[in-house]
């Protein structure tokens, strides 16, 4: 279980002094749940994901993961405790191959027979990609799929995906939906997915709407999604922001 208690995150802003990106947020994510976080751009979604992984440190508040206070733990400690993270914009390396990165993700030997499976799951032919460098020679979409494969390979109790649909083509997107459905069906992981995509929101158990750093709504998908689909003009969650 993941609990965010009175979580706030401020940054220094040249014009306004302090700017509050996350405002006193209280949220609980149950085990084995699939929660989609959505909301307008600039509402604090990606920042929240980074706070959970430890990439950013909160100004106030606490983060409790499976009963342990992880607020002051670094990224490595949280990763070892069982949190994984897929970047919105995957990182490129020079001299690190797809095989190396997935091997690091599984924390095991290079001959792990599952390495190819992880790539297949995200719609990449392992034979074509396993020895490719994770550099500028890969397209944005290819990088994104490899990024998701590293998170699948880690197989942690909690996986956080920051806009997994960004940069992925329509064909691969169908594949991606299937990946999340399978992950969720296995019920061994909790998924938190930051997304704007209706089709991702449509397979989540719950939807959290975050706007202007605050919780605008949270509820079962059946209750929240129809309201969101009315469009931002008439959506009562967006209007609150």
């Amino acid at each position, binding site marked *: 279980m993941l609990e965010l208690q009175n979580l706030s995150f401020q940054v220094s802003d040249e014009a306004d002094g302090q700017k509050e990106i996350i405002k006193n947020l209280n949220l609980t994510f149950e085990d084995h749940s699939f929660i989609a976080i959505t909301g307008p751009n600039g509402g604090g979604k990606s920042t929240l994901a980074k706070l959970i992984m430890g990439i950013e440190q909160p100004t106030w508040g606490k983060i409790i993961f499976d009963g342990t206070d992880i607020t002051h733990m670094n990224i490595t400690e949280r990763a070892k405790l069982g949190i994984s993270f897929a970047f919105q914009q995957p990182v490129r390396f020079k*001299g690190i191959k797809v095989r190396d990165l997935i091997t690091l993700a599984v924390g095991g030997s290079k001959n792990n027979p599952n390495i190819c499976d992880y790539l297949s799951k995200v719609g990449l032919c392992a034979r074509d990609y396993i020895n490719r460098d994770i550099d500028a020679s890969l397209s944005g979409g290819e990088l994104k799929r490899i990024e998701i494969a590293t998170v699948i390979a880690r197989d942690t109790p909690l996986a956080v995906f920051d806009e997994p649909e960004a940069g992925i083509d329509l064909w691969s997107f169908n594949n991606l939906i299937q990946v999340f459905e399978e992950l969720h069906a296995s019920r061994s992981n909790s998924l938190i997915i930051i997304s704007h995509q209706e089709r991702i929101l449509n397979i989540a158990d719950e939807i959290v709407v975050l706007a202007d750093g605050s919780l605008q709504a949270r509820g079962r998908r059946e209750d929240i999604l129809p309201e969101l689909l009315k469009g931002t003009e008439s959506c009562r969650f967006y209007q609150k922001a």
Partner: protein
Amino acid sequence: MDEIQKNLLEQVAGLHEMPSGAYNIRANGQSVERSTTAHIDIVTKTDKQGIDIVIKPGTKKESVHIPVVLSQSGLTEMVYNDFHVGDDCDVTIVAGCGIHNSGDSDSRHDGIHSFYIGRNSHVKYVEKHYGSGDGKGERIMNPETVVEVGENSFMEMETVQIKGVDSTRRLTKAKLADNAKIVVTEKIMTHGSQFAETSFQVDLDGEGSSANIISRSVARDDSRQLFLSRINGNNRCAGHSECDGIIMDNAKISAIPEITANDLDAALVHEAAIGKIAGDQIIKLMTLGLTEAEAEAQIVNGFLK
């Protein structure tokens, strides 16, 4: 050879035992082992230190190993090795120098390797430099490589200097004939207060000739590196040089490229990028469970792999 020399030999030439094919092993200023084949001859020079390696036309799939090891502190030597490669050859040449200095005097090996490559040949040249020993004396290597690549021939050069060399000035000069090609891949890591300078001078004289110089380097601690490359396009040709450097701690790297097109159809490109390890690369590896130090090591190892 003693254990120290054997270890140096393994580091610079990957040799656990005597190699097959032609070889000449030089230890502490003297040739200690030599073997020739029906197609490759090795002859000691009479007017100066060094050897002539003569590879007959048509020699295919053969190799020559000519490693040098120095384990005697204070030894300074200047060696001239000339490679005469005939037409229609396909050979691999493994050179390299290892210095173990546990004394207080500087040990220094300067070598000039000259390649005269005929037509339609392929030469792969691998050179590794390595230093060990905890003496105050410096381990110094100043290699010079002079290459003349004949028509339709291809020179592939890989140089590696990863550890223990206090000071190095490396000069590589190449002249290319029609449709000749050279590809150089250089990897350097410096640490402590080491200094490394690497300089390339390439003349693309022949029509359809091409050069690709790729340098990847990591400078740590207080070390300094200087990368110089000069490519002259004197005909319809293609030249590309690339310097990619990572700096850590208080290290410094300079890259000074020079490309000159003396022909309307010369296409020349230089790329240089120097900077610290990107923070998001470290963060990504930390999200996979690596510590910051492990992430850094992984990035550096991959970069120099």
